């Protein structure tokens, strides 16, 4: 009975893992990068320097909005957190025509000047990609990602049963032993951060739970908006009075709100009917300021700057959701914990990748003729190359494109993203046409070379290369370049190992082929 359970779990683990492994690898890799999304964004905007003060940034944003859209229906200001330097603003124009997104948003520095030097979506794109994907409707992507996360949960639980020796083999990592080594790598990366993997998968599902299971809200509220208004304190906007009254000082309101929350930062501001007597300012607490992602909010009368209301996220269910989203995104994490999150994420990425490789390593030995595997095996092997080496090269290409594309290029931010997918596709095709073992060594070496090129290109195209950054104590830039070098070393090492394994398999195959010929 016990063996029966283990066998069925092994089957479930193998096939659920394989089916979603490629997507999961991309989600894990880009999601892990997203722990440093603000730092990546800063690296991708080398023209922006220095920290930003929330109150000053809010005042700067108002100065900007007053010049471009003084009669807008509403303004939205996303203030920089403690790791970022830029303010994102959006506005809804006063006219009837719904304007295009690019024309109603801007990225500002602390003093309210638009940043136009280098258009990029920065680390935010990697963050969005890990659940919205790209080149497809967001809704489909989120369902796909949800299915993958659900399977991941199944794969973790069935994996604990399947790999029965993970706790006995807790410390075992043996190199150079073929299948055994892959199994060790898969087990060790899984078990050492098992609480993280369970947490990240489950809370990942929670972040989109309301979308996956809308029925609870649908049964109790007239619409999703009513629900959000009730629970998150988003107040209904009043009609504009038509009487022009300039907005009171936003910097003072930011400081008042912050003082109301024991000094925690303000994250997001929305202003309805700016410069009208009926203007209303809503501020919500920055996600980084506490464990829970959803937090307190306050409302001000825009014309007078007087506080008119305060709202705390209340209720057990909302608090649970808020803390789970907080746990997943780790926005509150300071340096030490952020690195622990990042390293655990890398472990998860290796776990998924080694699991995918393990599928082929295990089956290669059992192939009737290893020189001519059947179609299914070939497909998995090629998709593994595309998913692992391809994505890595793609991310490196994204960073390289940020430095190498002409600054004045139209739709530059989108072109950077295209570069990532073109590189990914190219490596995928390369993996298709080359012999598999050679393709691994070559594509991994390519990924390594691309990562190694990043600090070099950075030093050549900006004044913020590794050496000046280290001398200036600029750890965001130095750290980014050093991580790129570490990734480069990792991929070059993996490529060397793959080349060696190929040589060994070749040697082993030769005598057996001779034996087959003689018998």
């Amino acid at each position, binding site marked *: 009975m016990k063996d029966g359970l283990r066998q069925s779990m092994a089957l479930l683990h193998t096939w659920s893992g394989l089916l979603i492994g490629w997507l999961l690898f991309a989600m894990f890799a880009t999601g892990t990068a997203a722990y440093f999304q603000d730092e990546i964004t800063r690296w991708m905007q080398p023209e922006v320097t220095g920290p930003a003060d929330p109150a000053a940034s809010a005042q700067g944003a108002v100065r900007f909005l007053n010049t471009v859209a003084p009669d807008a229906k509403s303004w939205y200001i996303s203030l920089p957190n403690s790791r970022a330097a830029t303010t994102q603003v959006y506005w809804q124009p006063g006219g009837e025509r719904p304007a295009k997104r690019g024309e109603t948003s801007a990225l500002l520095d602390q003093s309210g000047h638009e940043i136009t030097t280098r258009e990029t979506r920065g680390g935010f794109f990697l963050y969005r990609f890990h659940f919205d994907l790209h080149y497809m409707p967001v809704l489909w992507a989120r369902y796909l990602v949800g299915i993958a996360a659900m399977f991941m949960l199944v794969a973790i639980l069935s994996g604990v049963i399947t790999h029965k020796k993970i706790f*006995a083999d*807790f*410390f*075992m*990592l*043996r*190199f150079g032993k073929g299948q055994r080594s892959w199994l060790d790598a898969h087990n*060790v990366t899984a078990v*050492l*951060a098992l*609480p*993280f993997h369970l947490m990240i998968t489950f809370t990942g599902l929670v972040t989109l739970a309301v979308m996956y299971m809308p029925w609870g809200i649908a049964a109790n509220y007239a619409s999703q908006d009513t629900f959000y208004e009730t629970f998150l304190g988003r107040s209904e906007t009043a009609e504009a009075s038509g009487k022009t009254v300039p907005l009171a000082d936003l910097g003072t309101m930011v400081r008042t709100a912050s003082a109301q929350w024991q000094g925690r930062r303000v994250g997001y501001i929305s202003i309805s009917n700016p410069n009208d007597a009926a203007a209303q300012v809503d501020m919500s607490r920055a996600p980084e300021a506490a*464990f829970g992602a959803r937090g307190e909010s306050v409302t001000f009368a825009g014309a007078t700057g007087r506080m008119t209301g305060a709202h705390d996220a209340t209720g057990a269910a909302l608090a649970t959701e808020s803390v789970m989203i907080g*746990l997943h995104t780790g926005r509150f994490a300071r340096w*030490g*914990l952020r690195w*622990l*999150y990042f*390293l*655990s994420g890398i*472990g998860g990425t290796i776990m998924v990748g080694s699991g995918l490789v393990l599928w082929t390593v295990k089956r290669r030995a059992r192939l009737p003729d290893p020189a001519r595997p059947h179609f299914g095996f070939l497909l998995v092997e090629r998709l593994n190359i595309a998913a692992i080496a391809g994505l890595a090269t793609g991310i490196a290409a994204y960073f390289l494109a940020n430095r190498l594309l002409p600054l004045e290029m139209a739709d530059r931010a989108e072109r950077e993203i295209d570069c990532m997918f073109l590189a990914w596709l190219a490596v995928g095709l390369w993996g298709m046409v080359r012999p598999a073992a050679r393709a691994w060594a070559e594509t991994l070496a390519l990924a390594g070379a691309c990562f190694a090129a990043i600090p070099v290109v950075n030093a050549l195209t900006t004044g913020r290369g590794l050496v000046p950054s280290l001398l200036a104590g600029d750890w965001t830039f130095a750290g980014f370049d050093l991580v790129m070098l570490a990734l480069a070393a990792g991929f070059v090492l993996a490529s060397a190992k793959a080349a060696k394994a190929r040589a060994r398999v070749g040697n082993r195959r030769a005598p057996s082929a001779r034996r087959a010929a003689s018998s």
Partner: protein
Amino acid sequence: MIHLLPLAIAIAAFVALAVSMKRHQRDFVGRLLPEPQARLARVTGWLLLGVVWAIDAALLGPAMGTLVWIGEASMGAWLTVAAITWKAAR
């Protein structure tokens, strides 16, 4: 910096746990340990992990402390695995 002391204790804890397992005793002590000593190592390992949790919880509160504790324990286990792999390769 706040992670250094707990991390050091976490490594000690995992080394103790590894020493309590037969297959790692040769690498760490050069011989097989009798069962009472192995059990002592096991109890010490778990106790030290408890100490790490207590330090984190005292410094950061039980909620954040537990989260940080899990991260440090993972890191400590990783470094222990690295040490074992390195020792075994020599």
